[in-house]
């Protein structure tokens, strides 16, 4: 995590107005949670002096970034809290053994995925079985009501020999690899349609789940393994593209890890497609489709500071209406909402969003929801009951590769 700006200067931007705490969804349901002002800029003063305060309670922060969006002065509150958690982790601050084991597992989405996709059918049956979920809750503290995503046959990597001049490397990420391979195929398809050869090396997890569960060192080691895999492409100046906003955020932070990584050109899928559009290279052989969509911007997309390129791009398609839902965090925050002591807080955080989605669907403002983040998709479906997919499916439909956004979602035969 890069935090090399003048820390004191950032602190001085805080005028102590408390707007952040007033809007924090966790502080709203848990009075013991000191809130962003105290855990962020206030405690930061002590941390600059080497004093750690409020570390145990800081784990209740879901990193939803509502505080940062509210702050009139643009204080990077969540960044401060995350860093404090990492520092506390280094000195092993307060978690029970049960939660430590669970957080260890959630941090390793890649291994969980590998294990689960040996027999995805069996995994899914188990994950739906109430008894098994009770056991998970009792033993590991994984909430039995939480919407754990289903597993699919693994997304296969493909390293072709490089013939075409226009090439990109695709980083699928754990969610696509183990839970949603069809979206991975759709992304590859769209890139190919725009004239790109797509290379998919056997990447590891991006590191975000490790970081989110407090395993910063392990996250950096995984990142370095990915960088080694990316090395030859990086040298050839081939961009790295991902459709997952959490992977995207992590990949953008890689350049802080190794010297060679400074050449890494990491793009969000739609950011890349928008650049093609700006260069007049984006294919617009669209069918006229009539769809209205609600768009949810994930926290990790907001943190990238690139705006909402998917909304921009999808609005180029005739007949497509996109409404920005503008309701903050869905509450899941990676694996936060799966944890038994946090599930209800997570649902509370997501409530304004779920209400907005339900209301929009009820009065026919839109039919389904799109968001880049796999976690948000799972949580919005769980909280609102409305179909939620990756925005690449709208492009798939417009290009005529795919019928009916909602019902035909898993008809893989229609792909390719």
């Amino acid at each position, binding site marked *: 995590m890069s935090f090399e700006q003048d820390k004191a200067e950032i602190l001085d*931007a805080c005028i102590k107005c408390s707007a952040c705490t007033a809007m924090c969804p966790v502080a*709203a349901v848990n009075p013991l949670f000191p809130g962003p002002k105290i855990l962020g800029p206030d405690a930061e003063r002590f941390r600059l002096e080497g004093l750690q305060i409020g570390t145990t309670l800081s784990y209740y922060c879901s990193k939803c970034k509502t505080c940062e969006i509210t702050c009139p002065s643009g204080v990077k509150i969540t960044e401060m809290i995350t860093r404090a958690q990492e520092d506390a982790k280094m000195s092993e601050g307060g978690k029970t053994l049960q939660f430590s084991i669970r957080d260890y597992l959630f941090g390793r989405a890649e291994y969980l995925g590998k294990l689960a996709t040996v027999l995805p059918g069996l995994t899914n049956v188990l994950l739906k079985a109430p008894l098994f979920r009770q056991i998970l809750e009792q033993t590991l503290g994984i909430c039995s009501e939480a919407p754990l995503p289903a597993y699919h046959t693994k997304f296969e990597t493909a390293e072709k020999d490089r013939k075409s001049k226009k090439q990109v490397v695709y980083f699928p990420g754990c969610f696509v690899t183990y839970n949603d391979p069809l979206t991975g195929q759709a992304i590859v398809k769209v890139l190919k349609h725009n004239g790109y050869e797509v290379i998919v090396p056997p990447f590891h997890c991006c590191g975000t789940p490790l970081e989110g569960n407090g395993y910063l060192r392990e996250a950096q080691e995984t990142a370095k393994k990915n960088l080694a895999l990316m090395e030859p492409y990086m040298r050839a100046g081939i961009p790295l593209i991902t459709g997952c906003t959490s992977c995207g955020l992590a990949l953008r932070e890689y350049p802080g890890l190794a010297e060679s990584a400074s050449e890494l050109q990491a793009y969000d899928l739609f950011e890349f497609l928008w650049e093609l559009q700006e260069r007049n290279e984006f294919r617009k052989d669209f069918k006229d489709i009539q769809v209205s969509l609600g768009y949810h911007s994930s926290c990790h997309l907001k943190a990238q*500071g690139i705006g909402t390129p998917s909304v921009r791009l999808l609005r180029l398609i005739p007949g497509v209406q996109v409404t920005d839902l503008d309701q903050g965090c869905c509450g899941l925050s990676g694996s936060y909402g799966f944890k038994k002591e946090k599930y209800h807080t997570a649902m509370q955080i997501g409530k304004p969003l779920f209400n907005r989605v339900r209301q929009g669907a009820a009065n026919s403002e839109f039919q389904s929801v799109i968001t880049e983040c796999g976690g948000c998709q799972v949580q919005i479906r769980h909280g609102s009951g409305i179909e939620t997919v990756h925005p690449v499916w709208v492009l798939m439909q417009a290009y005529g590769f795919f019928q009916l956004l909602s019902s035909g979602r898993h008809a893989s035969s229609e792909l390719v």
Partner: protein
Amino acid sequence: MWDGIIIGGGLAGLIAGIRASERGKHVLIISEGAGSLTYSSGALNFGDVVQLRSRENHPYALIEENVIQAGMDYFQKLFPDYQGVCGRTQTLFTPLGSPRTANIIPSGQNAAVLQDAKRIVLMAPEGMKDFFSKIIKTNLKICYPQCIVDIYPFRISAFEAWHAIGKPVTGMEYARYWQSGPGIAELKRVLAGVTITCSETVVLFPGLATAFSEPLKEVLSETPFPVIEMTSFPPSAGGHNLYNALKQKFKSLGGELLMGTGVQRIELQEKECRKAIVSSKGRPTAFAAHSFILATGGILGGGIEVTAEAAQETLLGLPLYVPAEWTKSEFLGEQPYAHTGIEADSDLRPVDPGTKEVLFENLRVAGRMLAHWDPWTDNCGGGVSLTSGWYAGEKL
């Protein structure tokens, strides 16, 4: 390529974005923070427009008088929950219970009915931060000697856990709770508990902001007495709600808002701005546009940086008007430093303070970035930001 990029998403930038989008322009607003509306009450002061226009360099003097009127009308058409007439002020309450005036205010804050009141009931929510019921009562008695003032303390179960550990609840937290489903029912219950001992009773309610909430307005329309919302110290629910409404309006018109990331610099080509370079995570992103608006909020917003040596415009290093004398000893009096800012022509394009030569053809300046005004002593903070923002959006 955008038609326009607006740097700074406070009152000025958002109004500019809304107006330009409405005119069919493709607009991107880039803003580091949410701007100063959350600090302010949400009421907008225009000041004495005629007198201020007679001051040679005041922002109002740069634009036609009808533009000021048009900006004001435009705002009220956008948000019918806000009321006001040019040249006439309305009364509302400070957080300490003394009356003040402003030109456009959320209807719920309008205190006009108090002129004919005989009894004021001051609602006193348990454990509310920065709420001083005794001081307010004293002030009310001074200003409305014809009235009996009763304090009505109440507590609600939603904040019991807060009271139990002695944690104060801000007015903004109360206001947020009233807006929720359970909060609306609770508010009805609380208001039903107020007894009417005389027919000219008026209820004064701190930590409540009904603008933009249909269910809340409905609750208040059903009470047998008028309810007046009080403004609060920062953070303020009134200002925050206005900010959200502006943001949503802009987005619903197809505008894109990039929040939480600042513009690092602007790429130039001779006398034209070309691209805004944004400090995205890891690698900067360039956004190109035909036209730009600088609404970065002056010293408080971060658009002007003041060091011991000098004041500097942070993005383009535009030359600033800086008063010779920086401060005056009278703390609440006129402070010359407030006049620091960018001088502009009648199209709001930045000019050199010496030669008056236009510096960039496709850049306009709005809001607190403009020179020669003091929002406090001129009493026109919202007015200048609103009208200059509206005009910049009209011209984009």
